[in-house]
């Protein structure tokens, strides 16, 4: 059995809550596929292996081998964060020490990866990620850090991360199926972060014709008015789906805020509105040149079928049949 040491740092417990939601497989089976004993975790630490803080010390001193170090939450490198490990060292120092001896270190969630919500605004506590501060290399461990396995900190962002991303990354590392070539520019495994949240969003057809929702609960695309960042957010949420594969942010009717990005949350304000200059959104879809966007969207608006035009601003389906009988106006639009 390998040892997986899971440390909860400056966090909200959200990554753990998400981990518990693992289905296909459920968490106990998922952990079995890792062939690892979970150490140090608030819920799963086994007292028989010793008190958690004692185990942490043994891991840091090399007495107990750490195959995988998983950190949930940002760190406060400067200030002693007073976190509960009874010993004298602040948590950030323990993490620094264990990262040197662990085979591999994984940052679970956007806070551990980039600082995330814990580092937002003026960030007076100077919270940061393990090897990135927002989109800049550095963080707690420094730009040149390599684990014993020779890879940088593997980032599994998301606020919180999808359970598949967490389990899948840990499994790939255990199985020697992941090395630096499999990581993107922010050291995220491409297999999970190589697509866009926009892919497979049920609103795709509305997006194509720029048939946009004007208010929540309407069926149209959330990009033009309601602040959706799905077209520039690198994740596979709408293909993978959440919560027993029933939903996602945009399926839930609210915008993707690009929570897997190093700049989340402050890089994506206003959250619920689309910033525009001269009627054109300031943050255009990833890789799409502005001139093309303007040209195509103007054309597609003109080409938009009536069915989409009406449904986009209706909270419930307006069927083709109704359309004919309602020729005078969108009477089915109850909002």
């Amino acid at each position, binding site marked *: 059995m390998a040892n997986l040491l899971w440390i909860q740092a400056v*966090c*909200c*417990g*959200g*990554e*753990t*809550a*998400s981990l*518990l*939601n693992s*289905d296909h497989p*459920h*968490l*106990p089976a998922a952990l079995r596929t890792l062939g690892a004993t979970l150490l140090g975790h*608030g*819920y*799963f630490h086994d*007292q028989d292996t010793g008190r958690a803080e004692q185990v942490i010390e043994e891991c840091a001193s090399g007495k107990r081998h750490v195959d995988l170090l998983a950190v949930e939450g940002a760190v406060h490198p400067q*200030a002693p*964060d*007073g*976190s*509960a*490990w*009874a010993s004298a060292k602040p948590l950030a120092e323990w993490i620094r020490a264990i990262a040197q001896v662990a085979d591999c270190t994984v940052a679970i969630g956007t806070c551990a990866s980039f600082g995330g*919500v814990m580092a*937002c*605004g003026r960030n*007076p*506590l100077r*919270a940061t990620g393990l090897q990135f501060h927002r989109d800049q290399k550095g963080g707690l461990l420094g730009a040149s850090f390599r684990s014993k396995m020779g890879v940088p900190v593997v980032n599994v962002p998301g*606020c*919180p991360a999808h359970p598949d991303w967490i389990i899948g990354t840990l499994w790939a590392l255990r199985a020697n199926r992941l090395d630096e070539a499999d990581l993107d520019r922010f050291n995220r495994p491409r297999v999970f972060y190589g697509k866009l949240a926009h892919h497979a969003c049920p609103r795709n057809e509305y997006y194509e014709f720029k048939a946009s929702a004007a*208010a*929540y*609960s309407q069926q149209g695309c959330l990009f033009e008015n309601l602040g959706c960042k799905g077209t520039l957010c690198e994740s596979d949420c709408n293909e993978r*789906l*959440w*919560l*027993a*594969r*029933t*939903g*996602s*942010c945009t*399926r*839930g*009717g*609210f*915008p993707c*805020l690009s*929570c897997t990005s190093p700049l989340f*949350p402050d890089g994506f*304000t*206003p*959250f619920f509105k689309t910033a525009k200059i001269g009627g054109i959104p300031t943050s255009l879809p990833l890789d799409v040149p502005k001139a093309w966007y303007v040209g195509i969207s103007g054309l597609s608006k003109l080409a938009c079928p009536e069915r989409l035009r009406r449904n986009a601003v209706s*909270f*419930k389906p307006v069927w083709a049949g109704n359309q004919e009988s309602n020729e005078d106006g969108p009477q089915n639009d*109850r*909002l």
Partner: protein
Amino acid sequence: MVRKTIAFSPFTRLEGDLQIRVDIENGQIVSSRASGTLYRGFETMLRGRDPLDAIVITCRVCGQCGLTHSAAAAEAIRSLLGVRMPRNARLAGNVMLAIEAILSHFTHFYLSFAPDFTEPPYCERQAQIFLPLAGSSFLRALREREALLGVLGLIAGKWPNSLAIQPGGTTRPVTASEIRRAHGLLSEYLRFVEEQVLGCELEEWLQLRSVPELERWLGSGSHAAGDLGTFAALSLRHGLTGIGSWPARFLSSGGWSGPDGETLLPPGFHDGLTREFDSARITEHVKHSWYDLRGGALPPASGETEPAPERDDAYSWAKAPRYEGQPAETGPLARLIIAQDPLIADLAKKYGPSAFVREIARLHESIRLLKQVGAWLGEVDPEEPFYQEAPQALSGTGVGLVEAPRGTLGHWLRVEEGKIQNYQIITPTGWNLSPRDSVDEPGPLETALVGVPVPDPDRPAAMAYVVKSFDPCLYCTVH
């Protein structure tokens, strides 16, 4: 007399960073101090931001009850604007918040509370079903979660950190076929509760109205073998009925208000008599907390959060909320006492607000809520709207009180020129694990720990059970 001071931290199977310092004399706790040790600064993060940002930011206060935080933020904005949500949104909102509460209660029971019986000094064979990642009950509870998550996904899209509750209503209209699907998933979860948690039908449990009726119920084989029955037997055997009481004052802002304004569990303040709840009677004290003392005890609407880590006369990052100047307990037990739930009221009469009664109340509330989720789903009318555009919050004050899984949650907000000027949060664990106040009166847990036996300081099992019976979430407390 030998007096020893011992600090316990971290606690295993607990959310967040908590330190408990206790003074022990003759193997008993004579006084205690609860410290929240991790400061993250959410209230100061919000200054100067768009009011709607509070929905996004505050739901990251806590990974387990984030939806409730965002609901409180949305409610604070609604109260500033003086608008209401459409009926469907109130129903869908209730379903989401109730599911978040049930998930939280069962996570607490299976992951945090029950497994302790498998360890020394208890080492109960009967508790092996609760063994983490191995016991049969533990495994099934984790697996069955999927059905409830499916219902949540159909209504809230994703979780943790759904943004489906907005000032104007809920963002996802639910169709008739989705309501049917949700009912189906719910009945799968119900079957788990009936087969494994109770060993009988939901209705049979819900008919219990007194301690003798409960005792008779526990006497039957299928009930005794259920998880609740096993927990009750273990608790009685190990004296969880006799620890963790305090001269309790209970508080609830009213839980799960129905579409027509009535609340499933009504608001109130109870100190022997139940009186009306008025949020204007709340103040927060910082004499023993690492914040600037200038303000003294302030109402949250004009509260201040100025960290002062250098103060060595303080011991917690949590402030001390008080109702009419006095500490108060909040959570499922408080809600059910104020709602005059016959079973819980009778249990509290016999065993006091002890660790056992607190835990039973949590399970009982989950079961009541589970029944209610189905009823609310049935009332949703897919033909009617879920959302009505709300104006922008430009200036004014608002308060959002919502019953979170662990108790009363309040968000207070002041907006000027479209920006947040002040934001204050008081969380359930803030009440329950509050430090001492301006007149050095301890918080509920601090008082409840007095008298608890600690025969072996390496294994403070009874103490841990008293702490856990409050289901503390230290993420929430120190936000």
